[in-house]
């Protein structure tokens, strides 16, 4: 079983440049025996938004690195990935009492934005640095006991040159092959699972 799980979420791959290239580059390896990673194309698996929770949890278990690949839409993840998160990261499984199945794994975000890097600045029309949009991801990882690795972002995806996209894809593959031997990982703190106080939410069986 590969220990890297890639979750690709793009609602319209037919009109995508970056993610179509990502899928084309990553999928062949995923299908091979002894592959370094397994790729799950969420919009292809669940075009009707009916997620097979058991299958998704089973795919997460053997992984040590979970990668989310998605375009940034309205400063967050596409709806199917959010639904996946809602339904797969369940109470008592991913967090809460006994919810330690994801603890100790790494979570890495690989995203593309339509806006240029310049637009993600206080003087740009997106007004915030891109890092300002990651805290919900970081906290999600923390609640599940996962270590949130520094995201890898391609800006200005609409107008990126073919070569730029190819370089992005090559770099991604390179990083995947070398994980976990990344220079920045050495600097990261070991991860400690966040805990929600008791009584914050009803326990199962309460009415």
């Amino acid at each position, binding site marked *: 079983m590969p220990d890297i799980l890639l979750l690709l979420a793009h609602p319209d791959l037919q009109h995508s440049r970056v993610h179509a290239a990502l899928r084309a580059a990553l999928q062949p390896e995923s299908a091979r025996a002894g592959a370094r990673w397994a790729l799950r194309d969420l919009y292809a698996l669940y075009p009707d938004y009916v997620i097979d929770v058991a299958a998704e949890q089973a795919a997460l278990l053997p992984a040590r690195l979970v990668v989310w690949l998605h375009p940034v839409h309205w400063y967050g993840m596409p709806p199917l990935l959010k639904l996946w998160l809602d339904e797969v990261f369940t109470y008592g499984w991913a*967090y809460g009492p006994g919810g330690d199945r994801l603890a100790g794994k790494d979570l890495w975000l690989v995203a593309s934005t339509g806006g240029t890097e310049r637009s993600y600045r206080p003087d740009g029309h997106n007004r915030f640095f891109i890092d300002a949009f990651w805290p919900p991801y970081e906290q999600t990882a923390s609640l599940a006991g996962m270590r949130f690795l520094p995201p890898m972002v391609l800006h200005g995806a609409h107008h990126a040159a073919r070569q730029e996209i190819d370089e992005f894809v090559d770099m991604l593959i390179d990083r995947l092959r070398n994980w976990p031997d990344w220079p920045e990982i050495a600097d990261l703190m070991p991860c400690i699972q966040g805990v929600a106080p008791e009584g914050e939410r009803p326990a199962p069986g309460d009415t």
Partner: protein
Amino acid sequence: MSNWLVLTLVYLAAAVIAVPLARFAGLGSIIGYLMAGIAIGPFGLELVSDPQAMLHFAEFGVVLMLFLVGLELEPRRLWAMRHPIFGWGSVQLLGSAALLLAAALLAGVPWRLALVAALGLAMSSTAIGLAVLNERNLGGTTAGQGVLSVALLQDIAAIPILALVPLLALGGGYDDTSDPIWKEALRALGVIAAIVLGGRLLLRPMLRWIARSRTPEIFTAAALLLVVAIAALMQSVGLSMALGAFLAGVLLAESEYRRELETDLEPFKGLLLGLFFIAVGMSIDFHAVMRHPGLIVGLVAGFLLAKALVLWAMARAMPIPLAERSVFVVLLMQGGEFGFVVFQAATQARVIDGDTASLLVAVVALSMLLTPLLLLASDRWWAAHLQAHRQESAQHRIDSPQSAPVIIAGFGRYGQIVGRLLFASGMSATVLDHSADQVEATRRFGWQVYYGDATRLDLLRVAGAAQAKVLVVAIDDVEQNLALVDLAREHFPQLAIVARARNAQHWTQLHQRGVSFIERETLDSALMSGRSVLELLGIEPHRARTLAQRFRRHSVQQLLEMAPHLGDEKRLISMSKAGREQLEQLLAQERELAERTRGRSDDPSAGKAPTA
């Protein structure tokens, strides 16, 4: 061994050997039965000596068939068909009889013999017509409805014709018979009224009572008893048994037992009908044929031609779509089982002598034997003719006609929706259907349309199956549906098959053939209705959607798990029993699933993200 054991052995063996052989040769099962009859009859191996007795017994197959036809026709639909039945039916019978009578009189035949022969030969074979409609799944087409209408009128007309035959013999004896005839008519009306009233008021409560006993074989027995009783009642007043059975069928068409009656009686009908055709094969008097070979050939050709002429004119006037006309004509042009009865009655009444009768019986039987062959010939010839015709008329647009990547076989309610989605998405498809009406509907799409039996290899080739990417098998008839899948997998392995399944059984059969895109035709619409019900009961819409989706996945999963266990052994279990058991299992597992999820579903945020 006792005599009936030997007879059963001979009949069953002959049928089991001849029918698959005939079907394998592409001749259809009716020819197979007829051949089997000729083989074992007095002029073949002489294994059976008394074909008339068997013919009499096997006629019950025709009775059962008309009961089943009646079951398919609600009274309202029958009422709507009154014009074609009485109008076109009368045109066919009287027109053919008049033409034949005129020809016979011109040839110098005595008028009584000419009249009896004309009336007897004007009748068509309900058994062949409806059996072919069934085998080719043509019942719903315009031609199919036309054949049914004419056959029904002939059944009704058999009564006055049989009453007329003795009158011919008596000649001047009009006074003696007027009273009994009048009384008989009254009695006949009384029996029909009793059947209609009894069917309306008594049959359903009775069937309900029997069904409550929960003994399936008794229900089957009751179904048989019902048909036998009605046949006996009709025969006792000298009416057509088949007509009575048909009436009873119509009266039960709206009842909740319709499907069950159908499945219970279907095998009896099939076997008895087979027996009937065997008996017809046996009753061809080859000695009579040998004595006057020229005369027989002339008679067969002449009366087929005369009837075909009338039918062709009718088909043009009705109108029956061009592509279906040949089927309509061929299915009604042969002589039929009522002809046998008329000739027998005429012999008894001494209107015609024994030799003439056996000659006429041989003529009718030969014409019945010819029907399937003529049908095959007309398929080939007419299809080619139409093809040429179409190409002529569509000369102005020769834009690589068969290049559509999709073939939709079956363009009824199901295939049309698939087609409309493709059309709306700017895709194009080639359509195959056996109903010219449906084919007409596709003209709006501007698509390439082929009329005919999609299970024919040559038609598939013409439609471009060798170049297409996807084959949509939307045929509603399960056997044809599977036959097409087999054909496509064998000859066009590159085609991705998207199949419509009638039910879970059919789904399994498709799955076993390696089809991966199978949809049960009612599943999704029924689930949508189920969602509406849940919503009306106060379940939030999105929750109802989730429940329905869970059920759907479970149901598909269920089928996948059961598929490997439903191998050959499944065929042994009767269809209905297997269906019932499947449903029970499904519901039990569904309840269990509901129990398991109930604990979670009471917790509104179960399985959801932490509340921030």
